[in-house]
């Protein structure tokens, strides 16, 4: 059933969108990731203009983060203080990101920047995940892992403006989470992602937060950052397609529930390798398209 998307201004099969939402939602349920970093490039592949894909995906992530955070909140896995500090950086970063987005769009470079950002981050994350899960698999067969120190001390702990985060059992400089929030905020605006796939590793390895509160806290601040991105993209660039967002999120929330159930029954490492492989395939396809000699080196720009 073809449906005309009012902002993207193209006709797409509604069931294709529902199915995509469901499939990505399922994966995000299994792995506990947002799925934006897979959904946005796939939307671009099916012909949604990249700016609309990014703006709309931010909107969809608001919905999936809300349903995710409610579950974590009930289990007490949200560090609101840390979330607030991250959010401070996130709001500034995403506002800057949307502005940057508008400028890049004006000069005709936004498609390239979106795709290059994806190639870079999908490449890094995919490779890390791949190596990590291979190592986990060999560790399972081999001897018990040797535990290192709980906290390593380095220059990071010399920064000023120290704050105590009880829920995360941390006493660190507020500049650190603000900085992390800012960087993820910029990426969120430009790539149309929640940024969980960068935020979560940063929280664990850079900030040293306990794993239990990481996902809930990250989701908590993602809601506000993506809401900010949605608002600003809609306001400044008119690139949020509500019809597209509703179709995607309908599929996604249903898929995520089944995914979460399936995730508890399936073996972790093999699945993670599969996800890593998928991330690398998407990355490779984007990179390949960028280096492929175009059939026409001339292209149409904005018509308005």
């Amino acid at each position, binding site marked *: 059933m073809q449906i005309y998307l009012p902002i993207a201004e193209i006709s797409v099969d509604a069931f294709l969108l529902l199915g995509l939402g469901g499939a990505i939602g399922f994966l995000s349920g299994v792995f506990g990731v947002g799925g934006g970093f897979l959904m946005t490039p796939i939307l671009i592949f099916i012909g949604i203009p990249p700016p609309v894909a990014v703006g709309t995906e931010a909107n969809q992530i608001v919905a999936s983060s809300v*349903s995710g955070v409610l579950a974590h909140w009930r289990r007490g896995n949200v560090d609101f203080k840390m979330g607030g500090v991250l959010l401070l950086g996130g709001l500034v970063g995403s506002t800057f990101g949307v502005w940057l987005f508008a400028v890049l769009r004006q000069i005709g470079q936004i498609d390239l920047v979106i795709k290059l950002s994806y190639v870079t981050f999908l490449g890094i994350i995919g490779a890390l995940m791949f190596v990590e899960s291979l190592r986990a698999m060999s560790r399972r067969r081999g001897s018990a892992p040797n535990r290192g120190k709980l906290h390593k001390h380095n220059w990071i702990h010399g920064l000023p403006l120290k704050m105590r985060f009880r829920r995360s059992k941390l006493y660190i400089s507020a500049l650190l989470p603000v900085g992390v929030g800012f960087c993820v905020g910029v990426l969120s605006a430009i790539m149309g992602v929640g940024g969980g796939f960068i935020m979560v590793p940063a929280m664990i390895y850079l900030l040293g937060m306990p794993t239990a509160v990481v996902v809930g806290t990250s989701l908590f601040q993602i809601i506000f950052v993506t809401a900010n991105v949605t*608002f600003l993209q809609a306001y400044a660039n008119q690139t949020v397609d509500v019809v597209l967002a509703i179709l995607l999120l309908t599929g996604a929330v249903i898929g995520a529930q089944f995914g979460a159930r399936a995730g508890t029954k399936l073996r972790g490492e093999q699945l993670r390798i599969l996800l890593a492989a998928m991330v690398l395939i998407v990355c490779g396809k984007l990179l390949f398209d*960028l*280096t492929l000699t175009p059939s026409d080196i001339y*292209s149409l720009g904005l018509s308005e």
Partner: protein
Amino acid sequence: MSRAVIVFAVLLCATPLRAAPLVVDLSNHLVAITAGFAGAEVLLFGAVDEPGDVVVVVRGPARPITMYRKTRIAGIWVNTANMTFEKHPPKNGDPPSFYAIASSRPLDEIAPRRVLSRNGMILEELDELRLPGAKASKNVEAEWRAALIRNQEKAGLYQTEVKRVGFLGDRLFRTRLILPANVPTGVYRVEVVLFVDGHEVSAQTTPLFVSKIGVEAEIFDFAHQQSAWYGVIAILVALVAGWLAHVAFRKA
């Protein structure tokens, strides 16, 4: 100037002498883009009062068009140059966002090229697709123009292949205007010219409106005119959807 006035006056006096040498109409004047829109077909029909050749030109609303050109930088293709086709005085307007042409016989058999060109029937020679000398030299201009036509053609928006106008007997003619799913919205101008022995004898212009109708139109207008509220509503929709999903599946 005075010559133009005289010519105009003569034309004004001359037209009533012929009892409408050319009448034209469309099967409908409004193409509505709705949820299931997948392109449209409009039937153009008319009659002439003397045997001749009919040429139909359809132009979409005029607006500036920006083109980009890519160069390979470090293995990656990057937009490095751009050119905007837009109105520049005195006589060039913005380029048409849509262009299609149909004729009853091959164009070169109907009239000399300069007559066709003057009537906007040769796409490459449209005034609106000219670039001012300050922007591009002749060679460069030709390259960008060819690229513009090629890309618009690929998008289905410039239909360079001349379609057929069919005659039923000597007097009645008809042709179909085909609009793809991605047609720009706005007022289209459908111009029909009657040629006899290589001279234009009569011309008729009729408008065709292409607009979004229904929910899609309202969403689009709302998004562009009330951007802030649109953003707020988009967020609220997402918040409610997320909460609903949580509630629905917690019970299940």
